[in-house]
């Protein structure tokens, strides 16, 4: 059993999805999905433990040997990601049943869970596999189910948002496919490990160069890096709230993982950072992303939009850390992936609770909620403080590492810019807080009460995780550091 963990990680949610169709009873399906996701979470914990103690796990699918058969390869990096994805998915699912009651018509509940599980499968698959073509397959599984999930939103704009995402996502996926195809043409292999050994021989050819560019652009589309982020705000704002919480915390992280995997493992550090001026380009785009997206966030009147733009800005921080191409920089990025998942998971779940009680998340409807939904609002406050990077929250940990990485390399001006960027976060977070705590409630909202327990428990689980991992950083820092070191080929 233990030996098969890498494949079980992916196959459990994959098989659970069609079984959901058979069960066909909303509540039952919910419990079953929760079980499947919970199992995936426990597997990811076991995998991480195993990787931390005994190193990389290589699993050959169907017993076919590696370069020919499909290999699942779990190292520190993807074990970390698997943990984030399955963990967030499980916590979010807790609140799912209550939330979709109000947002999705009853006859579609079962489909919702089926798609949710498929999307989870896709993400776990992208991360777990060691095969480049397999990445594409899982990418399509997760994306297609994501388009459908977003389209389930109860406003008509959801369809348009989903369509936008479909177009952009498909372009991205196609680019990645083209890139992988060109790589295959040059090397005759799809196994990532194998690719990384064979690519240097043909590194000087134009084909490899083109395939690299295709992959990078494709991945950047998926991760909504500025200026390729246009699909994200609407997709997050109009999707059902639970879907937003799940995607905001995980989907872009998977794309960042792909970026790291392709640049560091497949193409190799020296190729990636010398053929095109990746460092300058990404640092500039990352900074632009932080400032433009944060500023846009300030002017949003829909709170989901506001935090969606904030997500784009946070991706900017990850990109800046990545662009440094140092161990500390990469550690900062990995830490921020973990930490950002916790903050945004908490915030968007709290927003889901607001939607459940108030009906929408227009800023004006937040008036007086500080008193009417104290626990939910407190969660947004703590999540917001974490976004700002206040000490004792997870946001501070990643900010500390990012700053260290920048100052270490002598990038003082960039460090100042990063800090100024986080001041913008103060502004947009405080807009929400001021409305919630200083204004009298709107007339139609006088009756609004605190969210039910089915929301509060998952929300506060994530909030407490925000604080806990801001205080006890051993797990996140150790894993992130080990992953970064192994990507650089430094033995820890």
């Amino acid at each position, binding site marked *: 059993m233990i030996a098969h963990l890498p494949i079980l990680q992916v196959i459990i949610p994959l098989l659970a999805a069609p079984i959901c169709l058979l069960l066909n009873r909303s509540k039952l399906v919910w419990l079953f999905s929760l079980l499947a996701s919970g199992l995936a979470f426990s597997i990811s914990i076991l995998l991480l433990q195993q990787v931390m103690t005994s190193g990389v796990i290589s699993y050959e699918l169907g017993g076919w040997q590696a370069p020919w058969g499909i290999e699942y390869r779990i190292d520190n990096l993807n074990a970390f990601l698997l943990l984030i994805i399955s963990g967030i998915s499980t916590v979010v699912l807790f609140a799912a049943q209550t939330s979709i009651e109000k947002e999705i018509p009853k006859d579609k509940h079962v489909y919702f869970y089926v798609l949710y599980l498929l999307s989870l499968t896709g993400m776990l698959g992208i991360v777990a596999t060691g095969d480049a073509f397999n990445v594409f397959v899982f990418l399509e599984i997760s994306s297609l189910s994501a388009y459908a999930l977003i389209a389930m939103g109860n406003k008509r704009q959801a369809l348009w948002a989903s369509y936008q995402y479909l177009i952009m996502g498909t372009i991205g996926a196609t680019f990645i496919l083209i890139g992988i195809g060109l790589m295959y043409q040059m090397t005759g292999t799809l196994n990532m490990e194998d690719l990384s050994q064979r690519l240097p021989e043909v590194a000087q050819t134009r084909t490899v160069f083109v395939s690299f560019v295709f992959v990078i652009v494709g991945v950047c589309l998926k991760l909504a890096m500025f200026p390729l982020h246009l699909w994200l705000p609407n997709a997050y704002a109009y999707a059902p709230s639970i879907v937003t919480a799940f995607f905001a915390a995980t989907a872009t992280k998977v794309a960042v993982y792909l970026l790291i995997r392709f640049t560091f493992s497949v193409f190799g550090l020296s190729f990636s950072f010398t053929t095109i001026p990746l460092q300058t380009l990404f640092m500039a785009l990352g900074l632009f992303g932080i400032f433009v997206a944060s500023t846009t966030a300030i002017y949003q009147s829909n709170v989901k939009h506001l935090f969606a733009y904030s997500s784009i800005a946070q991706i900017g921080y990850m990109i800046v850390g990545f662009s440094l191409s140092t161990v500390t920089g990469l550690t900062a990025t990995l830490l921020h992936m973990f930490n950002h998942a916790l903050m945004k998971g908490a915030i968007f779940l709290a927003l889901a609770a607001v939607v459940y009680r108030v009906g929408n998340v227009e800023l004006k409807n937040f008036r007086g909620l500080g008193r009417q939904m104290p626990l939910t609002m407190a969660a947004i406050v703590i999540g917001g*403080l974490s976004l*700002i*990077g*206040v*000490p*004792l929250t997870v946001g501070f*940990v990643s*900010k*500390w590492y990012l*700053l*260290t990485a920048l*100052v*270490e390399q002598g990038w003082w001006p960039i*460090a*100042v810019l990063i*800090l*100024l960027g*986080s*001041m913008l976060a*103060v502004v947009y977070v*405080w807009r929400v807080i*001021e409305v919630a*705590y*200083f204004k009298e409630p709107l007339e139609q909202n006088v009756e609004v009460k605190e969210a039910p327990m089915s929301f509060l428990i998952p929300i506060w689980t994530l909030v407490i995780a925000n604080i806990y991992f801001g*205080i*006890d*950083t051993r797990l996140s*820092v150790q894993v992130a550091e080990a992953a970064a070191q192994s990507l650089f080929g430094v033995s820890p």
Partner: protein
Amino acid sequence: MNLSLELMLQLCIIMPLLATLAIVASGRHPNIREGVTIATCLALIFLVVSLYQGLSAGESISVYWWELLPGLTISFDIEPLGMLFALVASFLWLVTTIYAIGYMRSHQEKNQTRFYVCFAVAIGAVMGLAFSANLFTLFIFYEVLTLSTYPLVTHAGTEKAKKGGRIYLGILLSTSIVFFLLAIVSTWLVAGTLDFTLGGIFADDVDKVIASILLVLFIFGIGKAAIMPFHRWLPAAMVAPTPVSSLLHAVAVVKAGVFTVLKVCIFIFGLDLLAELPSTQFLLYLAGASVLLASLIAMRQDNLKARLAYSTVSQLGYITIGALLATSSGVIGSSMHIAMHAFGKITLFFCAGAILVTLHKSKISEMRGIGRQMPVTMIAFFIASLSIIGVPPTGGTWSKWYLMMGTIETEQFVLMVILMLSTLLNIAYLLPIAFHAFFPNLTSFKTSDKSNNTTNITKERLPSFEIKEAPLPSLIAIVVTTLGCLTLFIYPQPLFDLASAILTGRG
């Protein structure tokens, strides 16, 4: 009781936080709730005094909590400067609580439970800050203090409170995150440690330019020290209820700022390095400018609390100057001034609040003649003014004396003149208030009635001569802090011993 000193130290920080639970639980019964708060105050004073005795007995008291990031620990260590700050803060917390009970009840403020909860969190943060053993721990409590006082500043919940809160939080958070955090990260990378060490942590051959930049970042980043141009939050925070202004803006928050400045100057840079840095001179003049300008602005304020706020900005400049002078008399003067100014300024704020609660007056121009109604309050105001000015028989004399000594020793005559000028300005903006309260210069108006050719001379009338003092708890608080000002003049020895022990190591 037989608690170990280490446990006591931890209790100082944890107990106020635990008290918040009891305060919330007893929120419906104001008497129990206030009882809990006062019991916590008393227990805290007991703990701090026991720690003081331990420190005087020459014991070293330090606690290690956990490692937050590799190499960066949350740990505490008691040294004389922190002890001094903790003593002042814990004692004045008790006094303020007594005052607040009178004030909040007679003012019928809402959300009093939230008020006492935030108060307790703030004092816990101050204790953590005072005892922190490294810059990292200090920074964490510094931010906790900022955030826990935000609800206090915006307590009224009005549009004006919201605006004031915005400035308060905006300046304190942005300076601390943009400058202070950057300075800490850089120090960590340059020096390899953040532990407070007597004589500084930088190597002897550290690049002077980098150290200079870091010093500027630190002084700008510690926004709580309110050096111009980062002082705007202090007057903005005056929208808070008076007990908040008095404790937080005469003691906890602002003193946390200058305390951090002192800590950084003495234990991160070390006085020797500090004296050599080119940026020190620049910062000294900046602080000097801050002292003078703030005094000048204070003269033009008609709102009593705003005048006191600017006066605080100016007095904080004294402490920063003392720290940057990098001599032992400067440090002694600065650290004594933390205590002296705290007692003086808190009395002044208490008086301002008392006037507001009983006579509903906040403008200085309306306060003529009120000495007859509130004699005790106004006498206290007079004595506290003397302490701020720095003349006998009040405690302010001593700290100003040492600060002056410091400027003379280092031959900073410009600064000496600034300090003297500022003293004159203090007299000009503080004494008239008490003076007019007792000797109102009443103006007469001549009005002539043209129709029947008569001229009436109307004398401005004083409202009433009936004695109408502040609520009893508030009055007690005022008397206690005023006596404190006087006692510190007669008996400054323990304070001086603590202050002079800072540079020699443990007392």
